[in-house]
């Protein structure tokens, strides 16, 4: 028997550790019901961020939600963060059980 999964969207954000708290507050305000955060380092258009110290550290934030909400958040990121912060964000289609949770 196949599982009764439902489609949701996974939004992944990689950005500067220094904005973690601000970003998570924004997510709360946008109605997101959960997120997962881990530490990361990396390289992009704003150069190498090797996490050698706080200033140069990244975080990786994941949010599972409905497509529409993911697009809302992405729109907000674009308006509020893209110009001034090292940031990358992308969407992927995933499947979950318990659709009421996300």
């Amino acid at each position, binding site marked *: 028997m196949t599982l009764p999964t439902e489609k949701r969207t996974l939004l992944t954000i990689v950005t500067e550790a*220094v904005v973690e708290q601000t970003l998570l507050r924004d997510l709360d305000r946008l109605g997101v019901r959960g997120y997962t955060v881990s530490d990361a380092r990396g390289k992009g258009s704003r150069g190498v961020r090797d996490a050698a110290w706080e200033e140069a550290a990244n975080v990786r934030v994941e949010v599972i939600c409905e497509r529409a909400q993911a697009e809302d958040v992405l729109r907000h990121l674009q308006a509020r963060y893209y110009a001034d912060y090292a940031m990358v964000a992308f969407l992927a289609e995933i499947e979950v059980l318990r659709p009421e949770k996300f």
Partner: protein
Amino acid sequence: MIDVVVLFFLFGLAAGLARSDLKLPSALYDSLSLILLLAIGLKGGEGLAKQALAPLLPQLGAVILLGVAQTFIAFAILRGLGRLGRADAASMAAHYGSVSVATFAVGVNWLLVRDIEFEPQMAVFLAIMEVPAILIGIVLARGVSRDTDWRALGHEAFLGKGVTLLLGGMAIGWIAGPDGLAPIKGVFFDLFKGALALFLLEMGLIVSRQVGELKRRGLFIVAFGLGMPLLSALLGLATGLALGLSPGGLTLLATLAASASYIAVPAAMRLAVPEANPALSLAAVLGVTFPFNILAGIPLYHALATQFTGATP
């Protein structure tokens, strides 16, 4: 003779420039900075317990003004001579109007090694001078706009890690007094200089990463990074003379004034003035001012302090 803790800084710098794999575990760096901040606070609080606190109030007002004045002066120079944009100038001015705990710790070590006394309230000055420049910097960048999330900023400023540890350490030192602190001397006083040495090793590595940015930015950054601390040190000495500080206290107040923040202010500016380029300020603060202060500045400020007070060094 150069202090051994400064040799650790030079070693870190050399290793970084040679692109060695060397790096401190970040938990060690964070632990060392926590211990140094607590130790400075404890020592200050222990000293404060022996004197009346009321006469301190005008002194606190004076050092706040000192930090504010430095921020405005730096902003004017950066806008006028440096032709920086408003946001970049405001952000960098806030770095220079605030203070650096690492520089202060090297100054304290310099005096301790030479058995030179200083006033216990220097630790209070350190805590107090971190914040005002941040607020001025934001106002300079934005005006007093509605948008600014002052609550978040106030939180960042007054409850940031550094200020919390300094104030907490002071409170504990003040309550416990010398006898109460005796059982924990082992960790906080006997290990202070060794902890500072390791901390400066990592500082050397961090500074070495600023070289690329420095090369890109040309001479003005270097000139500002050397000139501003000298100017600030003179302001600090003047303030300290007005307050009647001892030569040791004068040296530390000049060091505080000359120092520029590379932890609290960058984080606050990143949030409050995001369009300012953080690499610019860090290149000046870490690539020029910090090394200058610990290598040449502190002895110089002490020489000036003894001359101004007429003390024999």
